[in-house]
């Protein structure tokens, strides 16, 4: 059924006149596609070029005029990365994103294993209830979660801000929101694993936990990777949850920091442009290095 792209491109006509006719009849297709590509490229190229221009140049002329002077600098990036605010917020983004990816991945995989390979009462009912939680928008639990973190902090650690003043709150919040989708995705993958393999491991006396670690997880790398990439990018790009759950200014991730720079300093485009590209660098690296998993992850996320 699957047809490769190459087959859809019709074979080249043999004679010259036939080629000219084919070219002219194809011209509108090329024109439309090139216009579309330009509309998609120009905005980001504009900001990219700006991020390499000296600050006085940015204020006095448009980025398109730079091609006549070719006056570039990396000062803006230097300022963004070494500046106390932005540089540390880049690290904060990593400290938030990595645990907020691994935590739901592990907890979700454990549950998904039970839902696919251990039989217990009300199994499908509980699974369905968890899947149903995918409908809940973040806004439905922002306030109570915040209140809960504050009272847990006050009651167990003697400090209301213990959880929201650390990364704990944002990790837990992202984890809770990721779990329904994670369990749904992984369970649907786990049930496709060969039954014989798991039965054989059971006959050999392996415990459920051992089967999970040694058989199921190694065989499920594609699904685990798809979820991990989707979740990592989701957390990295998130603004709303960090606005609410990260209340210690030194711990703010890059998305929040950039939005603050923007509202405080107004049109500091030399900082904003370089900052945006630092923020974009991580997803772009993920995109170009793990494109296959990335697209799978995004498409899988379409049910979230």
């Amino acid at each position, binding site marked *: 059924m699957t*047809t490769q*792209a190459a087959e*859809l*491109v019709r074979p080249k006509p043999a004679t010259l006149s036939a080629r000219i006719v084919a070219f002219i009849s*194809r011209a509108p297709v090329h024109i*439309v596609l090139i216009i*579309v590509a330009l509309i*998609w490229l*120009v905005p980001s190229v*504009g900001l990219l070029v700006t991020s390499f221009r000296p600050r006085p140049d940015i204020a006095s002329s*448009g980025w*398109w005029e730079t091609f006549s002077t070719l006056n570039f600098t990396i000062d803006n990036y230097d300022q963004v990365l070494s500046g106390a605010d932005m540089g540390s917020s880049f690290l904060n983004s990593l400290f938030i994103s990595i645990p907020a990816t691994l935590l739901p991945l592990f907890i979700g995989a*454990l*549950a998904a*294993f*039970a839902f*696919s390979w*251990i*039989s*217990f009462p009300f199994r*499908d009912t509980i699974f*369905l209830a968890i*899947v149903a*939680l995918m*409908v809940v*928008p973040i*806004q*439905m*639990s922002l*306030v*109570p*979660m915040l209140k809960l973190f504050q009272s847990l902090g006050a009651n167990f650690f003697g400090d209301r801000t213990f959880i929201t003043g650390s990364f704990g709150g944002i990790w837990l*919040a992202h984890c*809770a929101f990721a*779990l329904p989708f994670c369990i749904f995705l992984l369970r*649907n*993958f786990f*049930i*496709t694993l060969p039954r014989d393999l*798991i039965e054989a491991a*059971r006959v050999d006396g392996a415990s*459920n936990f051992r089967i999970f670690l040694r058989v199921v997880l190694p065989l499920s790398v594609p*699904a685990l990777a798809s979820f991990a990439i989707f979740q990592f990018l989701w957390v*990295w790009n998130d*603004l*709303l949850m960090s*606005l609410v759950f990260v209340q210690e200014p030194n711990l703010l991730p890059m998305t929040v920091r*950039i939005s603050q720079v923007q509202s405080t300093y107004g*049109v500091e*485009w030399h900082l904003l*442009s370089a900052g*945006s590209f630092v923020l974009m660098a991580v997803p772009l690296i*993920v*995109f170009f290095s793990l494109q296959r998993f990335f*697209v*799978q992850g*995004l*498409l899988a996320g*379409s*049910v979230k």
Partner: protein
Amino acid sequence: MSSTAAPGSVVGGATPRRRLPGFTRRGGWQATLFIAPAVILLLGLLVYPVLWTIRLSFDTGRGLEPRKWVGLDNYQRLFTEDRRFLNLHEFPPQGALVNNVLWLVLYTGLCLGLGLLIAVLATRVRYEAIIKAIIFVPMAISAVAVGLIWKFVYSPDPDTGILNAIRTGIFGLDALPYLGREDTVNYSIIVAYVWASAGFAMVVLSAALKGISQEIIEAARTDGANEWAIFRRIQLPLLALPISVVTVWLMINVIKLFDIIYIMTLGGPNGKSQVIAYMMYDQTFQGGKGGYGSAIAVVMLLLIIPIMVFNIKRFRSQAIQG
């Protein structure tokens, strides 16, 4: 598309109904250990908060705590009195909810239309992979970055924003503050977000197009069908399912729309670009009106539920057919 197609088995599906070999008395408590961390987190951080938010939506909720039970007052104010949320006294109607409808129509329509156009045209050229990568890449980046990229394009200063440079330099018109005018602000943000999301529609539809048997298309060509007829009569009907997948995704995106508004306009000018998710945040965390914000959150949930039910039903019927 593997996993969008796979969720056919939302309930059971491929799972055998018969007893699994792992079923022993021990299995029961072992399963508890496996699902306990997830279930505890979900109960504590999702189920309980949802109930709490519903409870708070019937309260004034000042300072984000239950203070005074007010029944349905918040909802009544939302739909009848608050002109920032829904204003039917003017024509055309105004307000955050109306803006969401505008988004629903324009954003969903443009993403689908452009995604389909690019998917169909790109299969006919040799640089298909490059075009598709260019359109898809904005999907990877944060709405914060998308917002800034387009704020730069829309800048009212002709020495910064390329649109105003073209307006003033080539057409000799006055610079236009696209994001600062009530009549252009919504369309400007919609264009920016279509730029960011059309790649999703394109990838899904393009994958579906490739799945259509080439023999059918060749047979039609042999019978003398032109390219338009092939698209209209063969490809489009076979794309019905992927189009509905994309539409659902885009619609849910519209209801949850927040980041891009926060970055580009903060709902301004004069609250003209507010949407429900932004208003929920603004009322709750800027205004301290926990009850009112919670009522908006409940409205969001009520809007999402029918879309998700439709989604899950469709996956299930697909599983039965497939």
